[in-house]
């Protein structure tokens, strides 16, 4: 009994620690991939092939002066990055990243690699994403500067607009899986058709997957939907006035949101931790591979596609993506009813 409790606590701390590390790794990956796409070398001076670059960045950020504009609201100015970072971490609490494992026989019975197994897990992810809007809008408002306010309002309007398509893509998977629990959804994607094609939902729901990824990229304010924080347009949008560790918290929150969107996409569409050649207890290796593939896709998108202008972005979200998501939901519902999947 106590072994399980200790294992649970260690699991929680492990997830937290790995998310922090993932933000640092993403900093390096982004710069290296960007460099390769732009035919240059990228970070290569600090450590072997530049792998210590994130460490250097963090140390630099820590030593910068922590400014607060005199006219800024002190409570809200301090609260906004806390809300952003907390919501980024909290969403990962219900995401499963591995099957039942006994940690190589050390535990009496298996624990699932998931911090909290709630049976409304998809809705919890969606709810925490809704709360993440507050970090941005409060950052924009409390800085008491025009660039920040415009960036904050635009960014939060974009996020709440794309939440609709995000939710509808989730609902389509929900129809197929008949359950809101992420563990159930992943378990239904085990096995394969004709021993060749795995039973992933991306093959049943290609449009849903595209809608989800597009809405996810827009939710995390990444290119090509990153107008509100584009340097050429709004200085830096809602985090213009932030420096040092508070800026690092926003920065980290953005990367961790990316990781969460990728992890949820892996669980919903790409079969989670199921894969050939490995037993379920080592499935977290497959999970890592799939999440890394989606994160690479994210970075690739940023450095390849031009940026949407804000009105084009909002028009796309409301007039293109939302109807596509609704039609996808209707077709999925008809398919489930007709084929009885």
């Amino acid at each position, binding site marked *: 009994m106590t072994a399980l409790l200790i294992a649970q606590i260690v699991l929680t701390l492990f997830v937290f620690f790995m998310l922090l590390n993932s933000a640092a790794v993403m900093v390096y990956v982004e710069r290296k991939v960007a460099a390769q796409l732009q035919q240059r070398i990228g970070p290569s001076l600090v450590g072997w092939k530049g792998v210590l670059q994130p460490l250097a960045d963090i140390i630099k950020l820590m030593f910068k002066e922590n400014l607060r504009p005199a006219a800024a609201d002190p409570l809200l100015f301090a609260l906004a990055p806390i809300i952003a970072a907390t919501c980024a971490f909290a969403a990962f609490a219900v995401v499963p990243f591995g099957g039942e494992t006994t940690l190589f026989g050390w535990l009496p019975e298996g624990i699932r690699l998931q911090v909290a197994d709630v*049976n409304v897990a998809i809705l919890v992810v*969606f709810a925490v994403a809704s709360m993440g809007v507050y970090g941005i809008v409060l950052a924009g408002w409390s800085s008491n500067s025009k660039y920040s306010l415009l960036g904050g309002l635009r960014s939060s309007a974009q996020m*709440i607009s794309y939440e609709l398509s995000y939710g509808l893509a989730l609902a389509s998977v929900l129809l197929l899986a008949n359950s809101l629990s992420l563990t159930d959804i992943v378990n239904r994607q085990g096995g394969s058709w004709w021993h060749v094609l795995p039973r992933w939902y991306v093959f049943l729901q290609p449009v849903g997957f595209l809608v989800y990824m597009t809405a996810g990229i827009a939710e995390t304010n990444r290119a090509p939907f990153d107008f509100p924080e584009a340097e050429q347009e709004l200085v830096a949008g809602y985090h213009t006035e932030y420096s040092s560790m508070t800026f690092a918290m926003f920065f980290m929150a953005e990367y961790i949101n990316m990781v969460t969107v990728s992890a949820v996409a892996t669980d919903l569409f790409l079969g989670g931790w199921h894969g050939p050649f490995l037993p379920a207890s080592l499935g977290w290796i497959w999970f890592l591979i799939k999440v890394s593939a989606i994160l690479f896709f994210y970075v690739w998108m940023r450095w390849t596609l031009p940026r949407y202008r804000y009105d084009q972005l909002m028009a796309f979200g409301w007039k293109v993506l939302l109807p596509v998501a609704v039609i996808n939901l209707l077709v999925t519902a008809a398919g489930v009813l007709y084929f009885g999947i």
Partner: protein
Amino acid sequence: MGSESALFHLFGAIAIIASLLVIAQKNPIYSVLLLIASFGALSGLYVLLDAPFVAVIQIIVYAGAIMVLFLFVVMLLNAPHEDTEHDLEVHPLLRGGPLRAGALLAAALFVELTWALTKGGGESGGFPGAAVTSVAAIGRSLFTDYAFAFEVTSILILVAMVGAVVLARREPGTK
């Protein structure tokens, strides 16, 4: 269980204190943020009442959408303080006259409500019977017994959306 009772008192205390502060703040932005905290506490209470779906929907709809709307409106109107000089000196809740009568009436309402709600016999144990927690059961009931209300509600939201856009639109040619 003791832990459930402790959690009930914790969430209840947060909800009451946050609501009291909502009506006591001068700055509407702080009121909105405190109300979000109150909604979070209520969401915890719904989880204690074995209603996880309602708890998550409370966060998604109330704390995540309606309060964002309030926050946007407060920021765009940018009128953080109440108007007259007398209002600026005296705290809103301490002014005299009909406002004190209002506070007394609210207290009287509380006494009446408590009496009306609890006079149906005191319950001594916990909740009897099983709870309906599955979203599937709620969905089934929603789309069969309450299907008409569901459709009417969707028309209501459409009307509200159109109405909000029309009411908040600037007349072309002015300002």
